[in-house]
């Protein structure tokens, strides 16, 4: 009739319990924790790598034609995200960053949506040549190659 852990049980009654009283003592997430996404629209170049690489496909892009360029908004819907941070790794410009903020308990769905918009100015459009010149350039091109 052996009683396992009897000694530890009695000893631990007198020791301090090892509970972190979370809501009172705010706990910092460990280094490199992949939490909430931070999106820096100014760095983004709308290359779409993150969309292609995101497994659950929770990144969506909306492009809107405006006069000074197309207004591009990226929506990171974290409700569907697996926090694998592939998007952050593949982003050539480092526009996406997963912070250590793990407070993702939300009551309405909107808070999980991280979005950022930027206006991508098109390169200065070369002057519009009349139709005729366009064909000449093409013929010269063709002649050069022969």
């Amino acid at each position: 009739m052996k009683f396992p852990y009897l000694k530890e049980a009695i000893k631990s009654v007198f020791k301090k319990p090892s509970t972190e009283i979370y809501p009172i003592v705010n706990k910092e997430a460990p280094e490199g924790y992949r939490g909430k996404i931070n999106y820096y629209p100014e760095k983004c170049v709308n290359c779409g790598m993150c969309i292609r690489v995101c497994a659950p496909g929770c990144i969506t892009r909306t492009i809107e034609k405006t006069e000074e360029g197309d207004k591009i908004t990226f929506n990171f819907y974290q409700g569907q995200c697996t926090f694998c941070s592939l998007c952050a790794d593949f982003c050539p410009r480092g526009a996406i960053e997963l912070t250590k903020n793990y407070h993702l308990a939300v009551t309405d769905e909107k808070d999980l949506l991280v979005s950022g918009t930027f206006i991508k100015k098109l390169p200065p459009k070369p002057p519009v040549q009349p139709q005729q010149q366009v064909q000449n350039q093409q013929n010269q091109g063709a002649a050069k190659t022969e």
Partner: protein
Amino acid sequence: MFKKLIEKSFEKSPWLFHLNTGSCNGCDIEIVSVITPRYDAERMGFKLTGSPRHADIILVTGPITSQSRDRLIRTLAQVPDPKVVVSIGSCPRSTNVFNGSYSVEGPLDKYVPIDVSIAGCPPKPEAIIDGLAKAIEILREKRRAMK
């Protein structure tokens, strides 16, 4: 006579019921870890119960697979009235990576309005505790609304 005390006790002793609808058990381990000595949800009165009849807060994990769909609906209906549905992780919220698969029957809010959804795959125990704290407020409102 006990109205005020009953109101207060709804905050102090919410009982949980864990409902796994095909999850990869990542979130389930997190839920259990909330009850371990380190995070100790019991100090706030949380207790895992065996039967939905005893529960106030229902923790749903996993994308609703077709097998567990009508079981989910039936079990959720069997919980007595002031109840709060909490979705743990992104699967119940939006069927995560399994979106569009043949056997996944879509996010949880197709069947029941989600009161609190805790994102994260799996969410950190502290996040779950936050979520549960929010769930307690909703429970109290529902209880007041029910009266």
